[in-house]
């Protein structure tokens, strides 16, 4: 009956007439998914798709990746350089020469007046590796300021610091393939389904083939926590106590891999003494996980044939970030779970090229994991670039989180921001705002001219984005992957690579040092700098064509290797990047320094990502099919707490901390405990008006996820109006 129509209606489905597919790597998170962008006969982008053969994503993409090709022409793009004499004036369009000349002159002027280090540069984890390398060359070799850092200090610094302290070098030792082998997985403050959906899919695939226990440590009942075999709803900021207590149980019951400890580690005895103070009986009262459960989990982990840990910001963004990473490393070292399939300490990185900046940007040292304090390293780079070795400082300068207080104290007078939005992303925004007001000169180099920090800029340099450029990313599993240039930059925006090259010409050393014209030329320099016996960070065997052919290659991958297969794991031979080749067991003592809920501010303020947004929403906030899933700020609050306060679902509340206030919609859910609110961090004028951001002593990373707030009722009409006024996208 229903089928029997003589005349069927026409079927129209949008046809994407793709003439050519171009190879790229996703520009959002660090998973490193390969994306093919489809161009039609006119060279117009009509669609994109995950690359079915790329080992990382095997054809899958998350929401952001699927819709990423919509961003090239999204609103707010910077189409021409902008300048103004004072911050009270409106921006005026400028030519690139004017903008760069003014910028360089101002940088030199400030440096001459207040010293070389009085001008700071803060970059990002979003550029391509060749651009990071070039920026490092420009800053370290030409501008010569030691106050140079990336916003990776806000996300990955603790992982870097922890890796360095344990293994003597940065570099995640494991890979996604470890899911296929592991017999037990422990996830600390990592919500893969929301933050790294494709890594979650790899984990899910492995678990569908072969179930293995998954333990999730998170104060929130995230989707991953819900799917875990064991969820440990830990008290915020006490991971070290939990890990120490687990180590206590392992040592107490002789569950450690003594042979591995004896053969490859230093510091075991000291660690044993330290953890002796963390009997689960006492520890349970601090970390909120009961004694029996601590013992159960410690045994489960230690007895597994191989076990792995992953973590993300739940560990990194705390005052025990670096310690937490070192302690997770301890857990894996004492159980012999490093460098073997299914046994690893795998930091799940945040930004697409956080690894690239760690490897090559010279932020924390010199290119290729070289250190400023190492004379040989300084000499190598000075010789290679052709500058005087004495031009380099002998130790690292300030991190991003120390650069801003130095602006406050007047030591730093000028700042160049590259692809980062500290006005939205840094803790304690009220204080950050005052710091921006103090700057003599600010350059904002960004894809979007409506990036909030531009409010304080003197010069705005419009940058090209993603596949408007060409170059590499390194992902969480050390896989170097390529983005081919697909389309021309928007308007008169320019690739960051070009901007750095042009800026270099305006400095004395810039005319001495060779700056390759193409990213591939810079890549050749990086390859050369990665040659060396015993180096883990070795990309010397790679080339753009080989990377595209292999759909990404994991380092180390040395010259002459034609297998197209990189190294899935580090430290497989038990040799670490320390002077004696042995890894360090770091003793971690718990310091209780967080601002905790009290009578005046009775709620923990926790923050984190939602899957549809990236960072400060400058990209995803303009792509409707992303943004619509959370277009406006909100918080999760426990319904019992809400009832006691008279807060109703989907009404506005005002949150108040010792720093400032924020207005959000309330979402009542038992996902969070009664004494906690959770707020997505993506929104401008939101969670960072509240956060404290105590710094980790080693990594200088802020503890975004631990501070205390109270909740106030607010007039609904006025709050709605305020909410609207605070959103330009």
């Amino acid at each position, binding site marked *: 009956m229903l089928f029997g129509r003589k005349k069927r209606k026409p079927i*129209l*489905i949008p046809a994407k007439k793709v003439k050519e597919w171009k190879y790229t790597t996703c520009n959002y998170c660090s998973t490193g998914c390969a994306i093919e962008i489809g161009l039609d006969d006119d060279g117009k982008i009509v669609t994109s798709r995950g690359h079915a053969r790329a080992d990382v994503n095997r054809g899958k993409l998350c929401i952001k990746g699927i819709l990423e090709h919509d961003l090239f022409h999204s609103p707010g793009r910077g189409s021409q350089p902008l300048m103004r004499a004072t911050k009270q004036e409106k921006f005026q369009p400028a030519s690139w020469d004017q903008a760069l000349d003014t910028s360089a002159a101002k940088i030199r002027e400030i440096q001459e007046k207040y010293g070389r280090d009085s001008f700071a540069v803060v970059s990002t984890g979003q550029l391509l590796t060749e651009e990071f390398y070039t920026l490092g060359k420009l800053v370290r070799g030409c501008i010569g300021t030691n106050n140079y850092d990336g916003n990776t200090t806000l996300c990955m610094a603790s992982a870097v610091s922890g890796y360095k302290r344990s293994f003597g070098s940065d570099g995640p030792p494991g890979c996604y393939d470890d899911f296929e082998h592991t017999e037990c997985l422990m996830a600390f403050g990592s919500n893969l389904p929301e933050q790294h959906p*494709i890594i979650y899919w790899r984990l899910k695939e492995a678990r569908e083939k072969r179930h293995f226990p998954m333990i999730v440590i998170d104060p929130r009942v995230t989707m991953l926590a819900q799917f875990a075999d064991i969820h440990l709803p830990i008290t915020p900021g006490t991971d070290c106590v939990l890990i120490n207590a687990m180590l206590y149980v392992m040592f107490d019951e002789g569950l450690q891999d003594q042979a591995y400890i004896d053969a490859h580690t230093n510091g075991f005895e000291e660690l044993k003494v330290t953890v002796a103070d963390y009997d689960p009986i006492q520890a349970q009262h601090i970390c909120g996980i009961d004694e029996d459960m601590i013992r159960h989990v410690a045994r489960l982990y230690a007895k597994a044939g191989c076990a792995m840990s992953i973590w993300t910001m739940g560990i990194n963004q705390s005052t025990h970030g670096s310690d937490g990473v070192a302690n997770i490393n301890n857990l894996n070292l004492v159980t012999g779970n490093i460098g073997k399939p299914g046994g690893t300490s795998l930091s799940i990185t945040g930004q697409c090229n956080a690894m690239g900046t760690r490897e090559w940007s010279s932020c924390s040292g010199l290119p290729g994991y070289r250190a400023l304090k190492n004379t040989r390293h300084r000499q190598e780079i000075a010789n290679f670039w052709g500058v005087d070795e004495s031009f380099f400082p002998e130790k690292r300068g300030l991190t991003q989180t120390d650069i801003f207080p130095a602006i406050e104290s007047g030591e730093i007078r000028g700042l160049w921001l590259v692809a980062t939005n500290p006005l939205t992303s840094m803790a304690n925004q009220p204080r950050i705002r005052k710091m921006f007001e103090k700057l003599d000169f600010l350059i904002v180099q960004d894809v979007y001219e409506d990036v909030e920090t531009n409010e304080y800029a003197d010069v705005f340099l419009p940058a090209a984005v993603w596949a408007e450029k060409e170059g590499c990313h390194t992902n969480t599993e050390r896989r170097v992957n390529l983005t081919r240039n697909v389309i021309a930059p928007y308007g008169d925006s320019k690739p960051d690579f070009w901007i750095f090259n042009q800026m270099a010409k305006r400095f004395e050393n810039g005319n001495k040092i060779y700056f390759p014209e193409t990213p591939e030329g810079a890549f050749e320099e990086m390859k050369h700098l990665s040659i060396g016996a015993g180096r883990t960070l070795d990309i010397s065997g790679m080339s753009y064509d080989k990377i595209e052919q292999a759909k990404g290659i994991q380092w180390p991958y040395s010259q002459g290797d034609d297998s197209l297969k990189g190294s899935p794991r580090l430290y497989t031979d038990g040799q670490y990047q320390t002077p004696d080749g042995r890894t360090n067991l770091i003793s971690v003592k718990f310091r209780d320094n967080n601002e905790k809920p009290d009578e005046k501010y009775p709620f923990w303020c926790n923050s984190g990502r939602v899957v549809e947004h990236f960072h400060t929403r400058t990209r995803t906030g303009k792509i409707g099919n992303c943004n619509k899933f959370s277009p406006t700020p*909100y918080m999760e609050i426990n319904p019992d707490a809400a009832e006691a306060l008279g807060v109703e679902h989907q009404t506005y509340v005002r949150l108040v901390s010792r720093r400032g206030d924020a207005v959000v919609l309330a979402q009542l859910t038992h996902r969070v405990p009664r004494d906690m609110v959770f707020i997505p961090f993506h929104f401008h004028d939101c969670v960072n008006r509240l956060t404290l951001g105590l710094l980790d002593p080693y990594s200088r990373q802020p503890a975004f996820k631990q501070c205390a707030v109270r909740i106030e009722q607010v007039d609904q009409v006025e709050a709605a109006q305020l909410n609207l006024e605070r959103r330009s996208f």
Partner: protein
Amino acid sequence: MNSEVKELTAKPEMIEIQQADGSTLWEVRTQEQPYAFLSDKAILDTNRYGQKIDLLDLTGGQLPKERPLFINDNPEVGCNPNRNKQHAFFFTADNCIGCHACESACAEKNETPAHLAFRSVGYVEGGSYPDYQRLNISMACNHCDDPVCLKGCPTRAYTKHAEYGAVLQDPDTCFGCGYCTWVCPYNAPQLDPVEGQVSKCNMCVDRLEVGLKPACVSACVGNALDFGVVENIPENREQAKISIPGFPDPSITRPNIRFQQTRELPEEMKRTDSAPVKYHKAADGNYKPVVDRKQGTSRAWNLTRLSSRENPLVLFTLMSQAAIGAFAIAFFGAQAGIPALQWFGGQTLYVPLLALSLGLVALGLYLSTTHLGKPLRFFRGFNNLRHSPVCREGLGIALFMAFLGLHLLCKLPANALFASLWQSLFGMPVSELIQPDTLATPAATFGYLAIVSGAVGLYYMNRCYRIPARPFWNHWQVATSFYGNALSLGTIALGVLLLPTLLLTGLDSAPATRLLAALIAAGAAIEAIGLWCHNLDMTAAEHEGAASHYVQRTTFGNSYWLRNGLLGLGILSGVGLTAFDMGPTVGLIGLTMLALALVASSLMGRALFYVLVIPTTMPGAFFWRNKGFEQHARDIGLADMPQVGVAPLRH
């Protein structure tokens, strides 16, 4: 399951891929992954309802086997060996992580704007921290065995294809009445307020033709969504349930979706969106909707919110009911020999009454046309008489208008006013053209025909709202309201002309006043009985209808009681005016007050009827598919930013 399993000869996968590689229907990715390919090894003969899965068998072999789908006019026939089998989604609810990959893959492929989505993910949640669970539900069109959208659509924009059993809709045929969005229990058809037309999930038939699963399924990151021939359980899955918490009653449409949901859930699962519905575990382990008193129990007016985008329908239904009622009472009363009406039938103002009826129904129809997304396509409203109550309603009303018009024409020569007009214009009596008496029989015939078509129109107008997916409407109260209003409002319209006639001719108005009062009271009483029973039934119920009724008594509680009060007052005063002769002046004033009270109560009641209905749709999320947030975004102006995903309403 009593169906026999029919083994298919397994085809080597490579052959399929090679075929697909040359296809102009869809480009298969280089070295596509196995998860993207359809993989039905064996196929049952019938589904669990006993319906044949082979759609050519189902149609009795009337259709050719290798018929092209003509996707974008492409005559290529896909290489999929199972293209004539009913396909279905398979959703492992245990696994969905709510990551929106399916939704964005769909949006990317179909190029849907932010405010529309062929597939949406919502969730229900339950338990207490940390023993908390969220169940995400990803839902698109279920390409039902019994596609109520297809049956309801007045324009025949829908086709259920013998290829894959896909229920596809043609936006270029659609005139944007939105009726399919009312009848679908899953919110699958999407009415775009910007474009003024509906579009929906197309099952990615282009991908199916080359052996690939739909884009949403291929994109799934949680291994939750799957797709294949209906009743086939994917590898590594064990169940094929027909329901999960939050999913509407599958008996409404026999949807082609199967579920796995093995994780034990809390007894109560709540929705985060504004719908006052939650789900309770019943004895059989399934979850049933119950009212969630989210807005508390206090009563409010919210009079301004009674105005909605359905305003034209409020007026259309009331005006056409009044028109049909007025004519029916006047004509039938005269035929039946009721003195006042028989007398009025011969009066000059009888023709103006006909004109008033005609004008009311014409204006109503015009307003209902403005409700369409594409008003200029209104003539397509009769294309699906075979299935759609909307078509039959429209036809009934149109015929009523036609017969009423003809009746009016037949009545003209006998009309004194018309006769004198004719005389002055043409200088001869109209009786020279035609004898009024010769028109008496045709006039009566057309009158009876108008009444029959009006009654049929009203019946189907009532059928339009008897929608299982809208339990608040799906009650016989719709009929009593519509016929009751025809009687009460029709009498009022009649009275507007009858009483002045009486007063002008100086006759005794008392009998007519009492008759009119009686008829109005009767109409109001019919409506009130229906509403009373509706109230009892909705109070006793535990479905979305009960939730609507809860909103009626709280958010609109004061308005609801005012309406009830006016209706009660109307009945009482009607009875009073009928029973006691109060003299012409008091009688007239009383009747006027009664009429005003009933017009007001009808307007409020009908507005409530449209505003209150809560469909059985899937749960939404906190922002997306949350009516409460959509309303808020429109109220404060967030909706003016297109990326918020809430389209501002056009008026």
